[in-house]
């Protein structure tokens, strides 16, 4: 007999290990989308219970209560209450708790109970609690709460076996239990009394060791030290960027030679002509030049996910709160801004954790100034072509240093812009509060991290396969047609549509040292920044033949002056060249106005920065 799909929902406070439990249950069988009408990420996964029941599980945004004071928390509330549009009421709610830290979750659970939904309390990370000497009387806890309780170790193989068995047992008798919802928003007095009730139950059922986690205290003594902590933060960021630049190189070289071999294979097998040119120059060298950056994107996401899992991100927010406050930013903006180093889109979406509208708007406006991973291909290409790979002071790679400098330039300008916004536009308002749990440090969960990195890498490749691919085809087309007249002596590309467009834009871009090839590359770069690299590759490949396609960096070194290269770097710090980012800004702010504001201010900054850089460089003899 085929039973209908069982719907589970994971609810818990932030840091309860909800996501690692979700990953443990579903593995890579996950679907990430948005809830209709809002930009809250909807994560759904699937698994089969030991008794063969098909289960869908939704990982709801973390929350401390059902009051719904942000769009994320409203989703969690509406979903549990069955009011979320287009969603099925969950058959069973799994309330996930960090076993080492039950206070806040038990209070949340007492509130959840009022909704009448069938529920299980999952004591996650039970191994860590045991190791710390915390003992929980599970049976008594279940009796006092009136809710089945099960322990789990999301990160261990078989650590969720009890949970799966219990899910089967409960789902077998679900239909018999009618649900009645008695939930309504709690008053302050009710909140207080539920917290008291939670504390009483915990005192009855849980015995805590006399000393708290010493590791967290020891690490925090250094990491949260007012001065030492900032030095540690700077070191972490520095290592992160050196690693992204240095460690990824061998893998990138490998990918690159792979695509080169493939390109030559096509060149040798197919007869010369349009098809050969399309496959080799348009498809393989174009898409290949973007996929080459996969190792760097994997590394940057790896770092961000590791720091988040370890529990460091909240500390970074703590350290940066007042410093960013000086620039008019909220401490919570640190995490969205740090995510923007990977990509501004998740960064801008992550600003939902900032519940004050104006703080949030400022963060959204400056997030695109953080150096996203799509800029890495452009930076890498130009740096490796123009900056010598020698060591300075014996141990620091000069190329890495320039890269670091570009990141610093992005951050500094972001803080400056934020300061100006605060000064001119959003004066005189009291700063929104900064309240954040600093979770105990945990060893990062490798499997969970692997799934996270895999999901992101898949998204990047998907983009490379769709948006970037179609842009490359367009560029190839623009660069190949119309074909040169018979007997023409100039390179074929000089007769193409690309040259016509590029040359039309050239007068505008000449003051900043850009030639028409750059102008051509900047247009498809609007679709995605990294496409500019591929576009340059295509433009110069068609112009210079096969050798040029293989050595785009070397070609640039001969075609561009150092001043042009530096001007291009300066341009890319600011340029608003990412249609998807602009689209997300429009969606998140709900207005075209802020999208237009972002586009304009970034374009003006880019042009100004390039103008200054180019002219200074020329004056210093780099022209």
């Amino acid at each position, binding site marked *: 007999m085929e039973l209908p799909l069982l719907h589970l929902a994971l609810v818990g406070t932030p840091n309860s290990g909800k996501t690692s439990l979700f990953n443990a249950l579903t593995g890579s069988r996950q679907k990430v989308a948005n809830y209709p009408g809002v930009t809250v990420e909807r994560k759904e996964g699937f698994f089969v219970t030991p008794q063969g029941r098909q289960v869908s599980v939704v990982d709801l945004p973390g929350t401390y209560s059902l009051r719904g*004071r942000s769009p994320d928390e409203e989703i969690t509330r509406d979903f549990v209450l069955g009011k979320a549009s287009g969603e099925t009421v969950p058959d069973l709610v799994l309330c996930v708790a960090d076993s080492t830290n039950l206070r*806040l979750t038990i209070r949340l659970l007492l509130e959840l109970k009022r909704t009448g939904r069938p529920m299980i309390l999952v004591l996650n990370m039970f191994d860590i609690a045991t190791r710390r000497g915390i003992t929980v009387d599970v049976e008594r806890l279940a009796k006092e709460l009136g809710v089945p309780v099960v322990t789990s170790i999301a990160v261990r193989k078989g650590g969720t076996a009890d949970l799966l068995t219990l899910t089967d047992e409960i789902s077998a008798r679900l239909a018999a239990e009618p649900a009645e919802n008695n939930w309504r928003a709690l008053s302050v007095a009710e909140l207080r009394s539920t917290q008291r009730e939670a504390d009483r139950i915990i005192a009855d059922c849980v015995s805590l060791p006399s000393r708290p986690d010493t590791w967290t*205290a020891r690490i925090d003594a250094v990491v949260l030290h007012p*001065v030492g902590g900032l030095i540690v933060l700077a070191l972490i960021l520095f290592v992160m960027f050196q690693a992204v630049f240095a460690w990824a190189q061998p893998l990138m070289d490998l990918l690159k030679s792979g695509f080169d071999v493939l390109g030559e294979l096509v060149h040798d097998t197919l007869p010369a002509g349009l098809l050969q040119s399309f496959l080799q120059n348009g498809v393989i060298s174009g898409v290949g030049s973007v996929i080459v950056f996969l190792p760097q994107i994997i590394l940057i996401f790896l770092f961000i996910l590791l720091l988040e899992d370890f529990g460091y991100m909240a500390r970074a927010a703590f*350290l940066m*709160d*007042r410093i960013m406050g000086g620039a008019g930013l909220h401490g919570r903006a640190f995490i969205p801004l740090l995510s923007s180093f990977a990509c501004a889109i998740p960064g801008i979406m992550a600003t939902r954790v900032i519940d004050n509208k104006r703080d949030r708007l400022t963060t959204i406006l400056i997030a695109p100034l953080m150096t996203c991973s799509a800029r890495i291909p452009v930076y890498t290409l130009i740096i490796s072509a123009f900056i010598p790979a020698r060591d300075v002071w014996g141990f620091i790679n000069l190329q890495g240093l320039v890269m670091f400098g570009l990141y610093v330039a992005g951050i500094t300008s972001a803080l400056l812009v934020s300061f100006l916004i605060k000064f001119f536009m959003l004066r005189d308002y009291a700063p929104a509060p*900064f*309240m954040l*749990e600093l979770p105990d440090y945990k060893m990062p969960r490798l499997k969970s991290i692997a799934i996270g990195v895999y999901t992101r890498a898949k998204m990047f490749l998907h983009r490379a396969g769709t948006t970037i691919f179609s842009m490359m085809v367009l560029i190839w087309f623009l660069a190949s047609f119309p074909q040169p007249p018979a007997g023409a002596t100039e390179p074929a590309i000089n007769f193409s549509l690309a040259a016509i467009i590029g040359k039309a834009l050239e007068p505008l871009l000449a003051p900043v040292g850009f030639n028409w090839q750059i102008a051509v590359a900047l247009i498809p770069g609007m679709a995605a920044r990294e496409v500019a690299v591929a576009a340059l590759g295509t433009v110069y490949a068609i112009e210079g033949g096969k050798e040029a396609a293989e050595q785009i960096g070397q070609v640039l070194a001969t075609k561009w002056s150092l001043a042009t290269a530096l001007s291009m770097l300066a341009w890319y710090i600011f340029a608003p060249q990412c249609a998807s980012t602009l689209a997300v800004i429009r969606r998140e702010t709900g207005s075209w106005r802020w999208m237009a504001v972002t586009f304009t201010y970034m374009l003006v900054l880019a042009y100004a920065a390039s103008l200054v850089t180019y002219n200074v460089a020329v004056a210093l003899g780099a022209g």
Partner: protein
Amino acid sequence: MTDTNDTRPHMPLGLALRGYTGVIQHLSARDTGSALSDIELESRLIELGFVEGARVEVLHEGLVGRDPIAVRVDSITIAVRRREAMAIIVA
């Protein structure tokens, strides 16, 4: 030794320095200068475990103006700005 709280002066947690330990006496969200309404501030503090009787210890302070502070509240650590911590009366 634990019952000395009656004799210790009541003060807002927002004025406590690093190393201070005490017990929460009550919450008073009025006139803290927070951007939140009184009820909202009080609700959020309770949701993060700041309830009467909880033991607090100021573990860390930020660099600029000793702000924000990291506070141990019974078994968890919460980062909060001094402005909001003014609503928590300890002794």
